[in-house]
């Protein structure tokens, strides 16, 4: 049995399981409702898109982390059953990851994308594409982080607490520390270090990469200009995407290693 065939089987089975769990449907419906409302009452223009960006950056990491952690605890029986079968652990891990990340990504992309297609209401398909793309990447990143947490932490409660902690760290605390650093080193040229700091946190990276797709960023003076120069063009978008992909791959590799070494 080739490892990819086994991976596919595990993924398909988990996919079916996750899709049936109604959580993902609720997740998709949540985004669909928000997006629909923003199109209806916000006109689907740049301001509505920006509101959507805020919501995506808030919800996707949080939900993916919490859902992803509990997903693995819920799948524990399944994992033990599968691991007793003649398959490689790597294939099981890959299948688990896809079984989590694919339905979440699809739910998110459909939830955000379908209302736009339905209303036919945007002059900003490039921005919508960037939003969906970055949202999917964030899903891939935080699915990996969630698996890493759930594999390393035996206890479900501890795992969920760690997941929420990780979210707080990346979505809130990190930026607070950055701001603190900015005020401490106010006398130094900070554009480049700050850019590095943004690249080092997937939530910030996603936020900056998305903001640069919007007119707003063009209106932010010197800092906006520096950001645009580095991350604004096609090369910059590639850099941002590359960094996000790296952000997905690194925890995924760590999680795969932890999964391979773990005792069940």
């Amino acid at each position, binding site marked *: *049995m080739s*490892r990819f065939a*086994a991976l596919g*089987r*595990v993924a398909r*089975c988990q996919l*079916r*399981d996750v899709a*049936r*769990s109604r959580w993902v449907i609720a997740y998709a419906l949540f985004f669909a409702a928000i997006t629909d409302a923003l199109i209806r009452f916000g006109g689907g223009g740049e301001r509505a898109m920006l509101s959507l960006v805020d919501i995506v950056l808030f919800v996707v990491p949080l939900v993916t982390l919490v859902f992803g952690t509990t997903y693995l605890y*819920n*799948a*524990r*029986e*399944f994992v*033990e*059953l*599968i*691991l*007793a*079968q*003649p*398959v*490689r*652990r790597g294939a099981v891990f890959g299948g688990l990851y896809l079984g989590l990340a694919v339905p979440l990504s699809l739910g998110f992309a459909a939830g955000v994308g379908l209302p736009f297609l339905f209303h036919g209401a945007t002059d900003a398909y490039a921005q919508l594409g960037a939003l969906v793309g970055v949202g999917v990447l964030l899903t891939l990143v935080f699915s990996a982080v969630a698996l890493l947490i759930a594999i390393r932490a035996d206890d479900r409660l501890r795992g969920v607490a760690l997941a929420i902690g990780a979210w707080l760290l990346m979505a809130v605390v990190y930026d607070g520390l950055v701001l603190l650093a900015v005020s401490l080193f106010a006398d130094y040229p900070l554009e480049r270090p700050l850019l590095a700091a943004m690249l080092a946190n997937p939530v910030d990276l996603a936020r900056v990469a998305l903001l640069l797709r919007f007119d707003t960023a063009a209106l932010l003076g010197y800092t906006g200009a520096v950001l645009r120069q580095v991350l604004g063009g096609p090369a910059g978008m590639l850099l941002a995407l590359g960094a996000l992909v790296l952000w997905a791959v690194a925890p995924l590799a760590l999680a795969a290693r932890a999964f391979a*070494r773990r*005792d*069940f």
Partner: protein
Amino acid sequence: MIEMRGVSKSFGRVRVLDALDLSLRPGRITAVVGPNAAGKTTLIRILLGLVHADAGEITLDGAPLAADGSSRGRIGYMPQIARFPENLTARELLELVTSLRENPPVVDRSLLDAFGLEPELAQPLRTLSGGTRQKVNAALALLFAPDVLVLDEPTAGLDPVSSGILKDRILEERARGRTVLITSHIMSELEELADDVAFLVDGRIRFAGPVAELKARTRQANLERAIAHLMIREAA
């Protein structure tokens, strides 16, 4: 034939298996017995590759267990508690494990039929009773005519009729020359089934050999008393 040599495992500071040696011979049923937390489950899980041994070697017919897990294709495992993905139906579960094997695997549905499980297969596993789940669990272990059977408390939760069906089946497997490892708290059951006994305390084998030898050595008439004798001596 399964050989375990010097298998050790610690969880944190607790040494669960300590340089354990054990042979499981084909055509014989080996009962692994011992007090709670003696390391029985860990032993089984190491055999299946679910737990990584810290040291030691396990061979299946002279060859080390394959790193890619393919050896597990020859092992039928019935875990103590049947824990299944809740949203799957029994049929999907069977299809899934079938699909994870070399194509096309030898599928032996006779135990499914013997249990009369067919009508239950369309149900999601979470809606099945504990007994029915245990039947699915047993059928799963025997589904691919494995060379090695690992049965962890196989009759727990089964009604007497099903329990009888399963035990008959285990004896049939022995007759076919399979290697069988079994654990159970029900000594009468082991008395009925086991050819060999491995007595495990604190991660070490204290006795390994034919049941008759154990009885002779402890001068007890039945297995239960023989084991009890060992345990008391161990505690002293």
